[in-house]
Each structure stands twice: as structure tokens, then as C-alpha cells.
């Protein structure tokens, strides 16, 4: 990978924009087969002290890089703006094209956050969507950039209180499309549950579910709640507030028409964020358990006739780098089921659920 670099201390957004244009022009003139990617702007606002860690996470998204990444590092007390532009590309071989990715790193102060839009807007690549990610909070930055952001990336599993994190997601969802990494951690589980109940003979079991138990890493309660909220919204359950128990366990009920569903969210000692397992049981002694295993999900089914079956549902773990990359990819898609799932998940903490 080759790189062109430009940097300037005490610079301005216009100077950064001019540098980007000139670097693109020069690179394209030198090699007509090199063209800039034009998919997505990703604006990331981070604490200066954690800039390196976030930059490393962005490195690991692999092929799901944004076209132009603007990484704003907020340093308390800073009054000026420093910027560094890195344009990276692989020289194409043969008749192929080479794609240029652009990364802009901006060091700025807290004083710039209130009007951050005026810094970012000139630097965005025009005519393509902009995704905003503020992993360290920075509510002022979010408020300032809300108008130019098409998508907000967040992680409801971040932060000590899942109820507050989910409430914040709902608040943002009211004004902009939200991609929630906690929701994306549930994707393989949702796909597998959907597949398990897809054969017409099994679908009616969905109406008889009487117990849902999830197992999750201690910091991923929001993921577990979103999975429960998803089932609740899809199956029209009415969630009621869960009770907290020892070791972070939560349990309670959801009303499913003529019966109740026991809901239990248990934490486990898994190292990586996300779910470790889910069990769904129906009234007639049929249950399905899916648990994270080597090479995929270990499935175990108990049938009413006493038959026990276990098998492996194949699939490689995406890892946290993969989850972030998936978050970037999801910026270009729209999932209509997140909002209702979020609403039901919040209802497990007593928020009023919108009817699915």
C-alpha cells in the first residue's frame, strides 16, 4: 500500500479541502487508473488519548473501509486545528483500477465541538452519505453534526447502563438512521432463529413460545435485550419490566396473547462482546438452544417425544473488527426491524413500548 501525506499545523477546513483536492488531482494525473472510492464519509469524534485505539479498530474493518474517514481527536484546552491527510492506494496492475482511500486526522479542542459542522462540512466528500461515530460520547459534536449526518453509528453495549444507552439510541433514531453495533451482534442469532422456525410445520411454534433465555457477555446486556426485543416486536409480545438479580441477571415476563413468556437475560464470562447463547422453549416441551462454539453455533433441540439432537450450525465469528466493518456497510442499508426491537427492548426497563 502506497501513501501520499499532507499535514499542516494551525490549519483550516478550507486548507484541508484544498489539500485533498490537490492530492487527488496529482495522484490521478500520475496514474489515471487510480480513482477515489466514493461510497461513504465516516466522521469519528474521539478523545485525543484514545485516538490510537480507535484508529486501530478502524484499521481492522478490512474491506469495509469508508471512502473518506475524518478522525477528529478532541484535546482539552486546544484552541487551534492541526490536520493530517493520508491518501492510501495500491498501484493497479495490468488493466485494473486502483482505489484511493482518504483519511483525514484532525486535532481540535473542546471549544470546536459546538460548531463542529463548520469544520467537517467542507471536508466531506460531496454527494455521498455521511456516517457519524462518537464512541466517547461528545454529545455537543453529535448535536452539531446531526444535520449533515445521514447515519449515526453507536454501540448500545458501550456504557454502564443499558437502559440509558438504549434510550439514547431511541432519541437519536427519532431524527436520523441509527446503526447500532449491539444490534449487529445479534444478527447471526436472529438469522438462525428465523431459519429454525422457517419450515411451515415449525412456524406455529412461534406462537407457543413460553420461555426465552439469553446468555451474554457482562457488558452486552443491550445486545441481549435487543434480541429479546426483536422477538417481542416480531411476535407481538408486550414486554413488562424485568427484575434484576444477583450476577447481573434480569428476568421477567412478556405477555403473548393467551399466555406469558418468561424472559431471562443471563450474563456469562465470555471474553468478547455479544451473546453466547439463546434458548427458546415452547409449551409442548420443545426447545432449541444455540450456543457459541468452535466453527459456528452449537444447536441442541429437545422434542416433546424426548428426542435430543445436537449439531453444529456453521459460520465463522466476525470478531469485533468484523462487527465495526459490518456497521460501516450497514450505513448504506436500512433495517426496518431495529426500531420496533429497540422500542420493545426499552420496555423491558419500563419505557413505554411502541406497538410492533
Amino acid at each position: 500500500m502506497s501513501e501520499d501525506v499532507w499535514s499542516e499545523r494551525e490549519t483550516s477546513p478550507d486548507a484541508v479541502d484544498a489539500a485533498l483536492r490537490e492530492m487527488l488531482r496529482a495522484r490521478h494525473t500520475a496514474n489515471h487508473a487510480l480513482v477515489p472510492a466514493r461510497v461513504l464519509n465516516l466522521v469519528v469524534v474521539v478523545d485525543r488519548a484514545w485516538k490510537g485505539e480507535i484508529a486501530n479498530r478502524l484499521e481492522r474493518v478490512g474491506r469495509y473501509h469508508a471512502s473518506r474517514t475524518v478522525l477528529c481527536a478532541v484535546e482539552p484546552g486546544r484552541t487551534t486545528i492541526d490536520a493530517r491527510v493520508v491518501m492510501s492506494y495500491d498501484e493497479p496492475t495490468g488493466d485494473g483500477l486502483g482505489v484511493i482511500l482518504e483519511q483525514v486526522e484532525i486535532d481540535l479542542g473542546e471549544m470546536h465541538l459546538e460548531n463542529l459542522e463548520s469544520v467537517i462540512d467542507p471536508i466531506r466528500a460531496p454527494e455521498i452519505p455521511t456516517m457519524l461515530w462518537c464512541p466517547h460520547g461528545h454529545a455537543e459534536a453529535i448535536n452539531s453534526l446531526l444535520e449533515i449526518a445521514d447515519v449515526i453509528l453507536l454501540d448500545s453495549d458501550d456504557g454502564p447502563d443499558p437502559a440509558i444507552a438504549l434510550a439514547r439510541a431511541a432519541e437519536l433514531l427519532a431524527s436520523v438512521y441509527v446503526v447500532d453495533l449491539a444490534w449487529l451482534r445479534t444478527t447471526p442469532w436472529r438469522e438462525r432463529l428465523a431459519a429454525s422456525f422457517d419450515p411451515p410445520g415449525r412456524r406455529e411454534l412461534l406462537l407457543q413460545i413460553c420461555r426465552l433465555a439469553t446468555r451474554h457477555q457482562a457488558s452486552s446486556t443491550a445486545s441481549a435485550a435487543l434480541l429479546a426485543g426483536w422477538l417481542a416486536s416480531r411476535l407481538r409480545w408486550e414486554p413488562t419490566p424485568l427484575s434484576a438479580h444477583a450476577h447481573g441477571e434480569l428476568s421477567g415476563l412478556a405477555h403473548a396473547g393467551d399466555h406469558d413468556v418468561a424472559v431471562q437475560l443471563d450474563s456469562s464470562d465470555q471474553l468478547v462482546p455479544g451473546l453466547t447463547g439463546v434458548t427458546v422453549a415452547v409449551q409442548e416441551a420443545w426447545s432449541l438452544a444455540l450456543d457459541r462454539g468452535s466453527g459456528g453455533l452449537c444447536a441442541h433441540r429437545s422434542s416433546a417425544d424426548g428426542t435430543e439432537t445436537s449439531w453444529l450450525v456453521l459460520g465463522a465469528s466476525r470478531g469485533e473488527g468484523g462487527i465495526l466493518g459490518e456497521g460501516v456497510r450497514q450505513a448504506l442499508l436500512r433495517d426496518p426491524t431495529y426500531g420496533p426491537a429497540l422500542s420493545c427492548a426499552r420496555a423491558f426497563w419500563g419505557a413505554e413500548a411502541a406497538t410492533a
Partner: protein
Amino acid sequence: MTALAENPLVQGLERLPVHPTALVIFGATGDLAHRKLLPALYNLAHEGALPERFELVGVSRSTYAHEEFRAIARESIARFSRTKPDPAVLDGLLADMRYIPGVFDDDSVYAELGRTLDELDDKAGYPLSRVFYLSTAPQFFPVIIGELGEAGLNRAKGGETRVVIEKPFGYDLASARKLNAQVLGVFDESQVFRIDHYLGKETVQNMMALRFANALFEPVWNRNYVDHVQITAAEDIGIEGRAGYYEGAGALRDLVQNHMLQLVALLTMEPPTAFEANRLRDEKLKVLEAIVPPAIENVPMMASRAQYGPGVQAGVAVRGYREEDGVAPESRTETYAALRLQISNWRWAGVPFYLRTGKRLARKVTEIEVQLKPVPHLAFQNQGSVGVQPNQIVITVQPDEGVSISLGAKIPGPRMRIRPVNMEFHYGTSFVSQSPEAYERLILDAMRGDATLFTRNDEIEALWGIIDPILTAWKEETASPIPQYPAGSQGPPEANALLQPGHSWRRL
């Protein structure tokens, strides 16, 4: 409690559920399985896209034990998978992979296959869907189909049974009709998936998005604005040791009858009312039936063939076709074919469609050029520039998938001088996702029972119907020598005779 007609959990998911399936690959030790099918299955497993219960059975003539076949499959996947294999996923995929050795006309192979499939159903605790993938030499297709029917494997209680048939489907119109009759004597059309992997390519599917999701193109997509269309599928490689296949096929059967005519159909069909298998295939069939096959005596006026001779490719001297290993010195098999077709309907009457394909040409490229008619009156001077050129819309399928539109633009300066500029869209720069391999998409569609990207029986006969007179004419015409073109060149000058006045082949 009422059963649910639809699965409420599916909404919003990108990956739709696939019914638990046992996939049987006939020809499991062959080249296609080795390079494409097994790696595609691994990638589906890696992505978590295979059904929750998935079993794979290989059937082939080579004598291997299950373990030996698993080792072969492991090697194929390690070598050709687009993603680096995850050892645990690979182990899981291979763990219970079965292999049945035997010749395809041996009843005992099918009895053993039946027992194996029943055993896999028992293991799952319910009937799996069954997909038979025929990845063998085409002469075995009717044999295998017949044997599957004899063994009662064309239907299964409680699960779907489907058959995927690789290309070439037939050798000419008569053989395609015969094969269709044999296949449909055993399976219903809804069970049959005739594969043309070109249709699984993202760019080919995107032609429909380009045409039917944009108001920009449809108003000019007709005889009033389109001057002519050129479709090129050029390869810079030779036959790569495949003389045995290629000598019996030639360029016309190898690429024109299937891939290139599919491109013509997608480019020219009327908008389907829904992106659904039969709606789409109905529209493709209508336009294919509007391509009037030539009378045999008219073939020389609308079709041209040639063979590559010795030449230079990328600075290296290469042999001519007739000097290739396994090729007869007096071979008349064409390595280059060019056609001029007419579509006899209101939308396209009078617009020439030029198709060309060849091996050992100057460059590897597959593209479609739609050239619009010139503007009716030009107010600008042409001096001092190449002047105003008709607009071209070029859809590139490979190597760099994308769309380019040429426009006339003013050259900066005091005079009003015009030259063409390009407005370009490249997939590689506009999407973050990597395109899946065509086989991944198509295998999944076949397991799901979605035939949208597969060829229907009447469609395949329509495709052969266009080509059949040309094959006949070329077979009968043995007196004159086959034109030769130097390897690495633009192709034979004889192909220029197909072009109408003012037209020329695009430079490769």
C-alpha cells in the same frame, strides 16, 4: 392456534432462511467442483449462509474413501476459496461429508445414494431437501437424470427435490430439445435449475437495476435513439489445455449460445412486472424469440468465424490454435465468432446487435456498448478537435465492473470546440461490499428454490434456435479455409464485413 402463513422473523434480514438441505454433487472430483463448487460451499459456510442442517455427498467415478474425498475437498477449498479458511468451520463442513464412488449408469450407485440420503434424514430427524448438482461431462446428464428417476430419487417425502444442470445444456437445438424431454420426463420444470454462472454475476444482475431503477435510460433505450449495440467477450488466453472440450465446442457454443445471448436478452427485454423467476424469464423469452434465426444461406452475411494463429501475447510468442496440444492440425473449430443480429420487435427493429467473442485476443474484456444516434443538427464547428461524437453507454462486466457514459464537452478556451469526455461509475469505488462469487449466489438460490437466475426449458431452446442455423452452415461449409488472426491481435479483418457502413468494432 393458527399456523403462520409467513415467517414473521424473516423481515429485515439480509440473509433469507434456506431449508435444511442435502446437496449431492455428481462429478465431485472434477475440475468445476475443485475450483468453484467446493470453495463456494465453504464460503457460504464461513458466512453462516448455509442452512442450519447441511449435508454434502460427492458422487464420482474415482475410487475414494470418505476420508480421501474430504482431504481432496480440503485442498480445493484451501487453494481456491476467496476467504482464508477458518479451520474450525472447514472441519465442521468436512466432518460428515460423504463420498460414493461409481460409474453414473450403475444402479447400485443410486441405491447407495438413496440409503445415504435416508440416513441423513434420520440423522436430522426430519426430511432434508435434496439438491442434485450435475457437474459432469454433458453426456452423463441424461444418464444421471434417468437413474435418479428409476431409483425414485426425483421425489422425496416431506422435502423438496431439485436438480441443477451445468452448461452446456445440449449440443445444438435438437439435442437440447431431447435433453429437455429427458429431464422433464423425470422432474417437473419447477425442480430444474439450468445454470449459467454468468447470470450469478453482480454486474449482469445490475444491468436490470441500471435499466429499470433509473428513469435516465429507458426513454432512449429503443430504435429511435440507439444506433447499434456491440457486445464483446474477449479473452487473452488460449484454450489452456482444454482441447478435448474446446475442439467439440468452439467459440459459438462456448460463449455466444449462453452468456452472450443472455446479455442480449437482459439488455433488450421489456421491463418485467416483478423480479420473480417466471416474470423475468417470460420477458427474456419474448425478446429471444424476436431474434429471427438466419436462413442457412444467409449465415455468411451475418456470422463470421476464425482461429487464432501464432502471434505475440504480452511480449511472448505463442502458438496458434492448430499447434496447441490435442488440437487436430486441420481443425475447423472456431476460436473467434462474430454475429450481427436483428431483433424484430417495435423497440429494436433495425438496430444491429454485434456480438464477438474470441480467444487469444489483445485484451481480456467483457463489455456492452450501446451507441446512440448522432444529434440531428450540430451548431458547433469541428475544426481543431475530434469533434462531437455520438454518446456511448458502455457497461463493463469484466475486468473492472462499471458503467461509462461518453458525453460531448467543451474544450477550455476561447473557441467552442467539443470533444468527448467520460462519466464513469466503477463498482469497486462505489460499494464497500465484496461481490460474492457467482456460484455462491446460485447454489444458495437453487437450495432455496429461486429460479430467477436460471434458464427455463423454453428459453434454452430459444437460445439454441438462434445459433442452430449458424452451426449447421459452418458444419456444412468445408471448402474454404478458416480465416486466421494473429494471437494478441484485435481479431480477424473478415469480421468487419458484418458491420454496417459507418460502424466499426470497438478497439479491445
